[in-house]
C-alpha cells in the first residue's frame, strides 16, 4: 500500500477538526475524498502533504504511513524531501495558486531543478514536454507568460504540470476544478485520470461533486464533520450506499445550476468545528437517527472491503 492513513486526528489550537480518519490508497488508484464544505477535506490534504504547521495545526494522533514511513512522526526538516518530490499538491483555486510575479515556466522548471537535479535547459525542455502532454498549445510561449495572462483552466494545467514535474508517487488534488467552468472541468479531470493510468500514480481527488467521483474514482472516502462516514470501492458504494450520509450525497449529485457545495437534498448544514454534536455527528440531520446514535458509531468493516461508521447501516439496494 502506498498510502495508509490510520486514525488520523488533527488539532488546530483548541479545536479538533479531524478525528480518527482511516483510509488507504495504492499506486494506479484514484481515491475520491468527498463531503460537504467544511467537512475537513482540505485539512486532510494538508495533513497528508505535511503542511499543517503552516496554518498552526498538527497531527495529534494516528499515522500517515507513506511508502513505509510514518510522515506524522517526522520532523519538518525530514518531511520536506517528500513534499513536491514524492507527494505533490494541486490546490483548490488556480487563480491564486501561482506566484503572480514569476513567469509560469520558471515556476514549473524549479521542480525538476530542485528535485531531479536538472540544469536550467534540461528542466525547461521537460517543462515544455509536460505542457504539451497537458495539451497546452504553444507551450514555449506559455512558459514566458505570467499567471495573469493565462485563463483559469490554463493556470490549473500549469499547477498540475508543477505537481507532475518531479515525478511524484502521490498527487493530492484539492478540488482541482471547482473554480473552472464545466467543459474545462471535464478536460482537467480526464487528464488527471489518464496520468494515473499511464504512470501508475496514486491520486487523492478531493471534491464535493459526486458526479466526478462516479466518473473517475476507484474508491471513495466520505467525510462528514471531521469523521469518516464510509469508505468503499466506488462501484458498490454508488450501487448500495450503506451510510445515510453517503446515500444523501448520491441522491443530490449536483446538477447544473446548483451552487457548488450545497446539498439541497439534505436539510441543515455541516456544523462548525466548535459545535460538533456528541455521538454520531450526522444525527441532527439524519432521518434514521435514534437513541443509539447518541454514541459514536464504530467503523464497521464490510464484507466487500472498506468500512461504514453507522449504527443503522442501510442494507437494501439503492433505488
Amino acid at each position, binding site marked *: 500500500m502506498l498510502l495508509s492513513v490510520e486514525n488520523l486526528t488533527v488539532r488546530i489550537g483548541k479545536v479538533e477538526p479531524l478525528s480518527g480518519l482511516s483510509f488507504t490508497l495504492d499506486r494506479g488508484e484514484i481515491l475520491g475524498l468527498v463531503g460537504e464544505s467544511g467537512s475537513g477535506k482540505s485539512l486532510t490534504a494538508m495533513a497528508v502533504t505535511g503542511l499543517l504547521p503552516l496554518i498552526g495545526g498538527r497531527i495529534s494522533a494516528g499515522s500517515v504511513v507513506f511508502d513505509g514511513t510514518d510522515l506524522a512522526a517526522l520532523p519538518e526538516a525530514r518531511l520536506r524531501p517528500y513534499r513536491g518530490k514524492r507527494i505533490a499538491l494541486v490546490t483548490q483555486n488556480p487563480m491564486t495558486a501561482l*506566484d503572480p510575479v514569476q513567469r509560469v515556466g520558471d515556476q514549473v522548471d524549479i521542480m525538476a531543478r530542485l528535485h531531479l537535479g536538472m540544469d536550467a535547459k534540461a528542466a525547461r525542455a521537460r517543462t515544455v514536454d509536460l505542457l504539451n502532454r497537458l495539451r497546452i498549445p504553444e507551450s514555449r510561449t506559455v512558459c514566458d507568460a505570467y499567471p495573469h495572462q493565462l485563463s483559469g483552466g490554463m493556470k490549473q494545467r500549469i499547477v498540475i504540470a508543477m505537481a507532475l514535474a518531479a515525478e511524484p508517487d502521490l498527487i493530492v488534488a484539492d478540488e482541482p476544478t471547482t473554480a473552472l467552468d464545466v467543459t474545462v472541468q471535464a478536460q482537467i479531470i480526464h487528464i488527471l485520470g489518464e496520468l494515473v493510468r499511464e504512470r501508475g500514480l496514486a491520486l487523492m481527488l478531493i471534491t464535493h461533486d459526486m458526479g466526478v467521483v462516479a466518473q473517475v474514482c476507484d474508491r471513495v472516502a466520505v467525510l462528514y464533520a471531521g469523521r469518516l462516514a464510509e469508505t468503499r470501492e466506488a462501484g458498490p458504494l454508488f450501487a448500495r450506499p450503506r451510510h445515510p450520509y453517503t446515500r444523501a450525497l448520491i441522491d443530490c449529485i449536483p446538477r447544473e445550476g446548483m451552487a457548488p457545495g450545497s446539498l439541497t437534498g439534505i436539510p441543515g448544514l455541516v456544523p462548525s468545528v466548535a459545535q460538533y454534536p456528541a455521538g454520531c455527528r450526522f444525527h441532527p440531520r439524519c432521518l434514521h437517527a435514534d437513541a443509539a446514535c447518541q454514541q459514536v458509531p464504530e467503523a464497521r468493516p464490510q464484507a466487500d472491503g472498506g468500512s461504514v461508521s453507522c449504527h443503522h447501516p442501510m442494507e437494501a439496494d439503492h433505488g
Partner: protein
Amino acid sequence: MLDYILRRVLLLVPVFLAVSVIIFLILHLIPGDPVDNLLRVGSNAEARARIEAKYGLDRPLVVQYGIWLANLVQGDLGSSIITRRPVSTMIAQVLPNSLMLGGFALLFSTIFGVIFGVIAATWRDRWPDQMLMGGVLLGSTLPSFWLGLLLILTFSVQLGWFPVSGARGWESLVLPVLTIGLGGMALVARVTRVAMVEAAGRDFVLLLHAKGLSPTHIRLRHVLRHAMIPVVTILALRIGWVLGGAVTVEYVFARPGLGLTLIKALAQHDYPVVQACLLMLAIAVMLGTLLGDILQALMDPRVRSALT
C-alpha cells in the same frame, strides 16, 4: 516598457507647468513685500518704482510668469533679492549637500529597514521581532533634532569619532545621515514586516511549501519580492521629503542644504530663492514618483500589463 517610461516622462510636462504656475503665484499671494527689504527707511516712491522695474515687479503677472519660465528653462533662476547673487549658483552650492544627505539617508533606511523587517517577519511575535519593533517604535517617535543632538553628544563630543558639524568629508555625513535615516529605517522596517506577513499568508505561498522549496528560499525569493512592492512605493514618496524635510538636521549639524536655504529665504521674502527651492523640491517629488512607478512596473508584471 521603454514606451511606458517615455509616456510617463511626457506626462510630467503638464504637471511641471502646473506646479510652476503654483510656485510662481504663491509668492505673489503671500503677504510681505520684498521691496520693503531693499528700500532704506524713508526712501521715496521713486526709488521704490526703480527697484520694482529692476526686478520686473511692475509688469502684469502673466508677463512676469512668461519671462520667469523662459529664463527658468534656460537654467536662469534669477538672482537673489537679498544677496544679489545668481540663484542658480546658490542652489548649485547647497543642492549637492542635500542630494548626498538625502541619497545616503534613503540608502541607509532601505538597506537596514528591509533587513530588520525581514528578521522581524521571520521571527514574528518572538523576541527578535519584539526587540526590533520596540526599537522601531522608539526610532519613529524621537524628534530628529533631539536624535541629532543625542548622536552629536555621544559620537562627536564623547567619543570624538565624527565632526560636530559642517559639510566637509564623508565623516561629517555620518551623523546627519543616521539622524534622518533612522526614522526612514523605522518606517521601511515596519512596512516590510507587515507586507511580508501579509504576503506569506497568500495562497501561492502554501503551494510553494508544497513544492518542497526551502522556507528561506520562499521567504527571500518570493515573499520578500512581493513585500518590496509597497516598500518601493513608500521610498519613492520619501525622496522629496528627505531632500526638503531635512531642515532641522541641516540646522543642528550646520550643513547648508535646500531646506535651510528655503527657510531663510522665506523669512527674508527672497522671492527668487524661495521659488527655486520649491521648484527643486517639486522636481524631486516628481522624479521620485516617476522612479517609484517605473520600479513598480519593473517588479510587477500585472502593473506592466495594465499599462499596455
